[in-house]
């Protein structure tokens, strides 16, 4: 069922059950929002999306007001604009105006609105909150002074991840966002899915790993798929200077933009110093010698990992080499073993972490090149 309404003189149709905001969005009409987030139930609290509706005594929030037949709505009447400016001026009056150094610059809904409504400073002076910065967990930095109490994080934690780790504590001007029984995030039921960070409109909740790493406009975003479990969440990797600096959920069919702790924060292994940079072969291979009996080594190494004095150890030490050498040695050894012991003497473990295309080639390699069906991977493990 559809209903007809008029927004800014433009006749539009909305589905019954839509809010004014949803109807306006569908018609391409811009209504600014702050506490509203499309994935969360509307709250109606920030009062930025107020619109003027004929026959309504007061301005009404577009995010909660149902679109009903015959409504005549102004989204930017002087009265509306004045109310929005007033609300913004109040928000700014208790907000550190450190945009120059703020992480959220360029990615801040409050900044965007202040810009849109030309609010440079607030005329309403008074107490500003001075909460200590909470950077005690490895993933999410909490800067309450930048919180505008939109409660998006509260709703995301309850509505999206379902764990209710975030609540509002106290009330009025003293209200603030807290975790668990008002302690550190890591002591609450928080699972660090980061949905709260994803929906935070300001710099109040910020991914700690990304601090100081780059501004939104300095970043290239690449959409890909998470490397952890089998759900297949679409991620957006934020890249600057060949470094991943941040990961956000992207709108994939499996995850609708949400991720878990590993997907959002567990990416730094990619840049870990342990990464193998060059092929390595055991010294005995380079020297064309017989493979030493490494059983002996294991006994020793379990006592002292650094013990490389024995002959076995020397022959067994890693030597970095170039690709050609490593590939030639490997090809020759595999070829020889195949020729000596038969195709079925070689086993191939392909990888549940690698691409389809790579797995296909491993399958082709095993069957065409080696001539066996001894291929498996850790699907069973």
């Amino acid at each position, binding site marked *: 069922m559809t209903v007809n309404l008029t927004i800014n003189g433009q006749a539009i149709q909305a589905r019954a059950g839509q809010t004014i905001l949803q109807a306006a969005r569908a018609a391409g009409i811009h209504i600014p929002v702050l506490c509203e987030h499309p994935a969360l139930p509307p709250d109606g609290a920030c009062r930025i999306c107020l619109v003027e509706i004929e026959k309504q005594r007061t301005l009404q929030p577009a995010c909660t007001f149902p679109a009903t037949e015959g409504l005549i709505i102004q989204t930017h009447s002087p009265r509306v604009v004045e109310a929005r400016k007033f609300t913004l001026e109040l928000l700014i009056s208790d907000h550190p105006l450190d945009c120059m150094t703020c992480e959220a610059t360029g990615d801040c809904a409050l900044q965007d609105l202040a810009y849109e409504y030309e609010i440079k400073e607030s005329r309403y002076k008074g107490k500003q909150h001075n909460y200590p910065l909470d950077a005690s967990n490895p993933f999410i930095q909490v800067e309450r002074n930048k919180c505008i109490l939109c409660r998006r994080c509260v709703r995301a934690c309850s509505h999206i991840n379902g764990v209710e780790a975030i609540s509002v504590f106290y009330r009025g001007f003293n209200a603030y966002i807290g975790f668990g029984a008002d302690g550190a995030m890591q002591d609450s039921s928080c699972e660090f899915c980061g949905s709260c960070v994803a929906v935070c409109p300001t710099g109040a909740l910020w991914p700690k790993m990304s601090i100081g790493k780059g501004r939104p406009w300095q970043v290239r975003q690449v959409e890909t798929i998470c490397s952890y479990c089998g*759900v297949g969440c679409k991620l957006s990797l934020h890249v600057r200077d060949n470094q991943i600096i941040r990961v956000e959920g992207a709108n994939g069919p499996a*995850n609708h933009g949400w991720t878990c702790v590993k997907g959002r924060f567990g990416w730094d292994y990619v840049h870990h110093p342990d990464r193998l*940079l060059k092929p390595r072969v055991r010294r005995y291979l380079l020297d064309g010698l017989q493979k030493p009996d490494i059983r002996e080594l294991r006994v020793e190494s379990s006592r002292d990992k650094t013990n490389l004095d024995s002959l076995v150890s020397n022959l067994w030490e890693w030597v970095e080499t170039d690709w050609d050498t490593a590939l030639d040695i490997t090809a020759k050894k595999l070829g020889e073993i195949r020729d000596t012991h038969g195709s079925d003497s070689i086993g191939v473990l392909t990888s549940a972490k690698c691409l389809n295309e790579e797995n296909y080639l491993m399958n082709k390699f095993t069957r065409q*090149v080696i001539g066996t069906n001894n291929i498996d991977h850790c699907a069973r493990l």
Partner: protein
Amino acid sequence: MSNSIEDIAGDAQAFFVIGSNTTEQHPIIGMRLRQAVKQRGAILIVADPRRIPLTDFASLHLRHKPGTDIALLNGLMYLILKNGWEDKEFITSRTEGFDEFKATVMQYPPEKVSEITGVPLADLEQAAKIMGATKPMAVLWAMGITQHITGVRNVMTLANLQMLLGNMGVAGGGVNPLRGQNNVQGACDMGGLPNVFPAYQPVTSPEVIAKFGTAWGLKVEGLKVDSESKESDNLQPFDKLRASSATFQLSNRVGMTVTEMIPGILEGKTHALYILGEDPVMSDADTNHLRRCLEECDFIVLQELFENETAAYADVLLPGIAFAEKSGTFTNTERRVQMVRKAVEPPGEAREDWWITAELAKRILAHSGWQTCPERSRRVADGPYAGWDYHDTAQIMAEINALAPSYEGITHARLERGETLQWPCPNAGHPGTPILHVGKFTRGLGKFTSIEHIPPAELPDDEYPMVLSTGRVLYHWHGGQMSRRSKGLLEIYPQPLIEVNEEDAEKLGLNPSTGSGQVETKHVRVTSRRGSIAAEAWVTERVPPGMVYANFHFPQASVNELTIAALDPVSKIPEFKVCAVKVEVVE
């Protein structure tokens, strides 16, 4: 998964989650289950020996004893049948084998099932009632079902349940195994299995062998496709092949699984391993035995991001690259193929894994051709997909499209256009298949299977009085090579923890590590017939009395030192989820 995350999350009126710690292992599916429960009142039944986090959202938690899944499910089906809650129409029109199946199930009255499983009668009745009344119901499981000697039978029993309830081929229903790794589905789809070519085309099928032989440029005229081919037929060295003029063939014998090929080293069957991005020392059962095997292997090539635990046994270590450094596709647990895109350049000289494999292939082929078989290299080049000169993964995907029927319509070009495709997708115009078995099963009629309960391979006794089960935790993943190298994940979960029930902790004289007891945190030593580990105890209700639970994320105390390599006879999956251990406090 027979169904999609989307329809399960959106349409299921009930969920039966068995052997899946969903919120920790598949957090986003777990998230969506919680949303369904909280936002639209879907009913959740969890069957798990452990009090996993998802049980907080469940209407009912069936806390059955480890390894009693079949008894539990048969018991529930007994009650469904007894009360006439089965979907008679579905059974008649879509299935076969019902009568025999029913006769088996009717051997599982609730009293007997309660005895075997430890689940109270009232809970069995309530669960059966919910299942009978609430449709569609989606069944979800993971390794808690499959990692048993009865893994395959467990899965078939779940299929029985869903057919009995008529929950197959409908949105919000289905049988839905959750795949553990990012591309485990794809690895299976691409022929990373000993019994099938890509898209599950059997290696024993002459037609399939002919198809791949032709495509890959292998001479097929001389192919022996008789099933009686003797072992020696496949063990002949190259010169013998040449002499017999049968040339290089595709093997038509099912190969070895990982759980066979590594122990095969000690039996002289396996002489070399080529391992891509895996860490058997962490992930395989019975680590001590596994180490002995790897030590004996003639040659091990490991292609990895890091010097993992298996690297100690490798002869060659080839630096592969991470997901963020490559382009191609992954297939998720719901059979959805999605684009992986390169975001950063790889470090050092690390190369694409497909490039490394192709280079090795080229060199081995050249080596063989040059040294032993000059004709062969020509023949290999004859087929349309015989060569190894790939310039990107799109080209490889084109080859997959040609050879894997369920992937035929899944091209990089379509995916890049934003299409979301789930196989089977048999042609370029096909929209993909979000739900399997709609109207008809792949094999025609769905087959009910009669399945009896079998106890686990190793049960507690006087010497090893407790049950050990294994798995992962939210903050780590698999062998931990990646997650332990994520600073934050390691900070949140820095060391292995062994879950011990409060009752057992008291018996052991172990003080809860969370309380303000007299003694600070304590460590326990857990010992099985195969090995021993020591780690900090986490005293928690997550495990029932008599059970301990540990993970395999940390080499200093990997639970696989303890696990048993008893295998499911069909799938060759080890029984990770049950073995007998003893637990002592470490001072």
